[in-house]
């Protein structure tokens, strides 16, 4: 009798355990392996400043593209294709960027390129890529002329079919900053400084135009030499001008020391810049006096987007040494746009890459649309991102703090 009871209990426990197991199990047949096992290798080129003053931003770009390819391989997102990256260092120099473009074109496995950081570098690369029908997606170029032509303010005309970007343009960023500085920060007299480069001068121009339209006064303008770190002469001019704010078109390696030296000259006024100064390194270079300085940057704060949480977690899990910085989310989305375009081309060709894959990827890119890290990713007729968001940040407690976000819906 006892034996029967034991056998019955054992059977019941076994049945229960099997039920528990059955309830908890999931068909994992669809899961991927850790690496792509595709037969075809597709290389996504990366061009960014990986050394030098701007390397903090450049390494964030490279790592984020690397992460996108790893995720695509792990998920076997494109059947039969394994993605790899080839990252080249442009040192922030247009001439180096152009050489890199030629190298990437020569590698037949490269079907798309993410980068560069600097608009001036992008300008030098565009023609090389377009001639080779190789798609380029910049996560960071903001100069309007790159997509809308040099006469963009009067008549927009797309110069290169192969060039796309996920970042918002300075046609919006400059006026966005001017609106904030004039209306919200209540600053009426600005001293405008730029570094004479494509990005910096262009951004300063769009800021100035809107600031004047709003009724603001430009009390002085100066250009600086980006190779220099001594801005004491300009700082003195700012002090003597009576300006209540400085707008700087340029990047953080110069903006940090410039802000510091302006305050040291006795002008206790905020320095405002664009996405080029939105870096942790700006805060280090500007020092304690930089508290209250402002920057606009493209997009909403990545940390505030639920869509970005997975990116942030995956980036951390990969153990990259460098932060993803201002353009990490946009770089991931740029790479993923290329992956989506490759997927479309492969699927439209019976699962194989066609001979004219590069040209087909350019065509496919125009219709790419997906929920990315930074929101909905798609491109308008000029190759510009349709998602046009901007955020104002201020230096507070040794970090950048969000002040105001805006969306362009025009």
């Amino acid at each position: 009798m006892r034996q029967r009871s034991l056998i019955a209990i054992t059977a019941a426990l076994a049945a229960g355990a099997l039920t528990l197991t059955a309830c908890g199990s999931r068909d994992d047949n669809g899961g991927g392996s850790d690496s792509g096992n595709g037969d075809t290798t597709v290389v996504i080129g990366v061009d960014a400043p990986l050394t030098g003053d701007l390397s903090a931003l450049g390494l964030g770009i490279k790592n984020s593209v690397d992460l996108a390819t790893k995720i695509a391989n792990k998920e076997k997102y494109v059947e039969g294709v394994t993605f790899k990256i080839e990252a080249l260092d442009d040192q922030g120099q247009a001439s180096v960027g152009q050489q890199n473009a030629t190298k990437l074109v020569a590698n037949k496995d490269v079907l798309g390129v993410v980068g560069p950081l600097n608009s001036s570098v992008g300008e030098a690369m565009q023609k090389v890529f377009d001639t080779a029908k190789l798609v380029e997606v910049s996560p960071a170029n903001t100069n309007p002329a790159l997509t809308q032509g040099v006469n963009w303010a009067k008549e927009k005309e797309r110069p290169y079919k192969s060039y796309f970007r996920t970042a918002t343009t300075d046609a919006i960023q400059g006026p966005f900053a001017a609106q904030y500085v004039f209306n919200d920060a209540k600053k009426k007299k600005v001293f405008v400084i730029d570094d004479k480069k494509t990005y910096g001068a262009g951004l300063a121009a769009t800021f100035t135009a809107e600031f004047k339209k709003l009724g603001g006064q430009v009390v002085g303008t100066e250009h600086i030499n980006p190779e220099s770190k001594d801005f004491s002469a300009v700082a003195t001019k700012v002090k003597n001008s009576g300006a209540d704010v400085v707008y700087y078109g340029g990047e953080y390696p110069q903006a940090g020391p410039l802000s510091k030296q302006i305050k040291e000259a006795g002008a206790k006024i905020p320095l405002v810049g664009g996405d080029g100064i939105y870096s942790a390194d700006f805060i280090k270079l500007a020092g304690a006096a930089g508290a209250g300085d402002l920057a606009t940057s493209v997009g909403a704060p990545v940390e505030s987007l639920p869509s970005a949480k997975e990116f942030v977690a995956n980036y951390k899990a990969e153990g990259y040494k460098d932060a993803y910085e201002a353009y990490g989310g946009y770089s991931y989305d740029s790479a993923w746009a290329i992956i989506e375009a490759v997927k479309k081309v492969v699927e439209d060709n019976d699962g194989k890459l066609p001979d004219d894959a590069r040209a087909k990827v350019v065509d496919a890119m125009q219709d790419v649309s997906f929920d990315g890290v930074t929101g909905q990713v798609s491109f308008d007729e000029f190759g510009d991102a349709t998602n046009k968001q901007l955020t104002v940040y201020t230096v507070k407690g040794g970090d950048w703090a969000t002040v105001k976000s805006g969306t362009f819906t025009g």
Partner: protein
Amino acid sequence: MAVSGIGPVEPDGDTRPLDPPPDAPHPRSGPSARTTRRHRRTAAATFLALAVLAGGALLHFTRPRPEPPPESRFPSQTTSFRYLYMQVRNTGARSPEFEFTIQALTESDAPVTVLGISQPYAGLSLTSTPATPLRVNGDGSRKIAVTVRVTECGRAPRNAGLPFMDVTLRNTRAKEAHSYILGARYARDLSTALEVACGNRNR
């Protein structure tokens, strides 16, 4: 059908059970032998039960958990505003005014409440019809007429290139202030409306 990549290792040689040797003692069959057998069976059954329980519990607690529901988005990520048209009215009122119409759209199934609509320019004040707070249904749209009263022509943005509209939104996730830049056509129409509204008034 999918097959697992790693199976049991095939054993070498004959795997049949061996017969007992011919001179092996016969097993005991007395009362004490029965007791021993019963104890063995009891111990074996208990061991099996515990093993099954432990295995089941392990599988249960380490089973793949269902994905948590996706976190809802901030209201500014699901809501957009489009400028539709401007209507300039000459009402002869002490403070000139004009009206423009916008369309609020939500891109998720969660409704959004518009708590307030304002603009950052000194010299202008806004009211809306319907009045705020107003609700926009999930995956829906709603037209809103905004009346602009010019309180001080000299401080109104006569020529703004990308004028802002500031909106306070709320959904189940958060309450959020956000700016919308309605574009070049809105900017042009706003400038024209301000010119008409203010005319030759003191700037």
